């Protein structure tokens, strides 16, 4: 199992500091959720951690190796990345989109070795996409397409999984299914990091929360330890009620702070 480590990552664009000295460690077996208001630098931090953006300071390593020194394929075999969903350029069938998840293993759509075909089948089953394999991607609903992208990321079967708002377009049922899927992947030993906008979902499923504000990580810890009304007011500017019960912590946002 692999470990992704970010140390003091900073990034500037157009004279503005988007990420300021962010450090975290993504360990196997934990579901970490990155939360923070719009424009707090969450997506940029993910890209920096994956080596897709050159940091202006700091470094990110996977199992001790600089991410920027890894070849794109070697990096992709360590960490699957699910960026915010964009429309596909061509109306390719669902099966081919998911097969692209095996790209770093040398796969091209239509040419899958037995191992790759099995990984694709497992991802299709996990995301409940059976029956949609031959549909053209442009005929899917937003939620279906989001699950196809998720299946694509899962098909990589990489030790680490990094996702940027994977549940943004989903119905409540699928939001919970996807969050549970991530939790299951973490139980199975993967290190999972995902940006999450839905705070209730984060409170319900995350093992660990990274709180981000103005490009900096302002808190890092378990839901129990870090989710407080004061921090919600500070980071998100909202007033919230937090109820602790036997099955965890329930969050109700009541209005602006």
């Amino acid at each position: 199992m692999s470990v992704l480590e970010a140390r003091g990552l900073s990034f500037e664009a157009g004279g503005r500091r988007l990420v300021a000295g962010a450090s975290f460690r993504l360990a196997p077996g934990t579901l970490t959720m990155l939360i923070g208001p719009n424009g707090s630098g969450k997506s940029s931090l993910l890209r920096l951690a994956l080596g897709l953006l050159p940091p202006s300071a700091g470094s990110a390593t996977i199992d001790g190796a600089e991410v920027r020194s890894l070849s794109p394929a070697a990096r992709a075999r360590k960490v699957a990345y699910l960026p915010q969903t964009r429309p596909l350029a061509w109306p390719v069938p669902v099966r081919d989109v998911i097969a692209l998840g095996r790209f770093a293993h040398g796969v091209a759509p239509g040419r899958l070795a037995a191992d790759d075909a099995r990984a694709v089948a497992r991802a299709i089953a996990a995301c409940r996409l059976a029956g949609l394999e031959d549909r053209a991607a442009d005929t899917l609903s937003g939620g279906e397409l989001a699950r196809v992208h998720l299946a694509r990321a899962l098909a990589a079967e990489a030790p680490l999984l990094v996702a940027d708002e994977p549940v943004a377009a989903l119905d409540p049922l699928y939001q919970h299914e996807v969050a549970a899927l991530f939790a299951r992947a973490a139980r199975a030993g993967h290190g999972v990091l995902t940006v999450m906008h839905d705070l209730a979902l984060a409170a319900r499923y995350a093992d660990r929360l990274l709180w981000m504000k103005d490009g900096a990580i302002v808190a890092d810890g378990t839901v129990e330890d870090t989710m407080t009304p004061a921090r919600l007011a500070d980071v998100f500017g909202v007033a919230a009620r937090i109820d602790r019960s036997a099955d965890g912590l329930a969050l109700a946002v009541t209005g602006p702070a």
Partner: protein
Amino acid sequence: MTARTNIALGALLAGGIFLALLLGSVALAPGAVLGALALGGEAGDVLVVWQIRLPRALAAAMVGAALGMSGAALQGLLRNPLAEPGILGVSATAALFATFVLFFGLAGTGPLVLPLAAVAGALAATVLVGIAALRARSAVTLILVGIGLSSFSAALMALLMNLAPNPFTLADMINWTLGTVANRSFADLAHAAPFFVLGVAVLLASRRGLAALTLGEEAAEGIGLDLRRQRLAVILGAGLATGAAVSLAGAIGFVGIVAPHLVRPLVGHDPARLLVPSALLGALVLVLADIGVRLLPTDAELRLGVVAALVGAPVFAWIAARGGLSR
């Protein structure tokens, strides 16, 4: 599915080339053509087949294949069904460089001068378009840059024509602008072939990355695509192949749009599997169009590029109107 498409298109192309050997100002019987191909039969038939019709048909096929594959690859890279060597100004720039060489009488200094000039023009244009694509990130801007590049090349071409020292040079240049494979010899083919083969090889070697780009650039990088290398390979491959095509036939437009557009549904819209059938269909289209050009009873022979534009431009407008530019 893809393999069957390729085999069918390959068979049709072989049939098309054979048809091109049969038909012409004097129709030959299939038996006579087969005999001439085996270097038997009447001397006149051997001459017609080997000196005139076969090189011409093969030139049309090579040009069509180069443009079809370049179009498909550029569309995959830029994720736009309207990207094509003609629309992006690559053909026009290659033709301009070639004309330049003709104008100053440099073409006589060596057999590779003309193809090299065309390839240099094509590469210069693909690099420019590639840079524009990176900066603009908008399909509309990209097409507009291509139109600007085309117009500028056309303007410089018009300038050269305006200054043409004699009617022969002018006629040469008009041929180059309109596009034709008339009177091509095996020597011409041999001089363009290395660039064609190299370009096609580069494109085929990098085609897997085109499938990755279906997801968009960020996700493509995420699944392990080396984006820089991919861009470079497509620009280099398309530039070499288009340059080779232009050095043989001048600027012939729209093949690179029409061919990929027609075969795309047959390969599940996969931009990687699109390359080979696009090349085969592009070749078939130009071989058939050239037969049409030779058979039409016009006083002056129609130029192949004119026919391609007459058919291709409405198709371009149709794809654009159906929202091809919106992506």
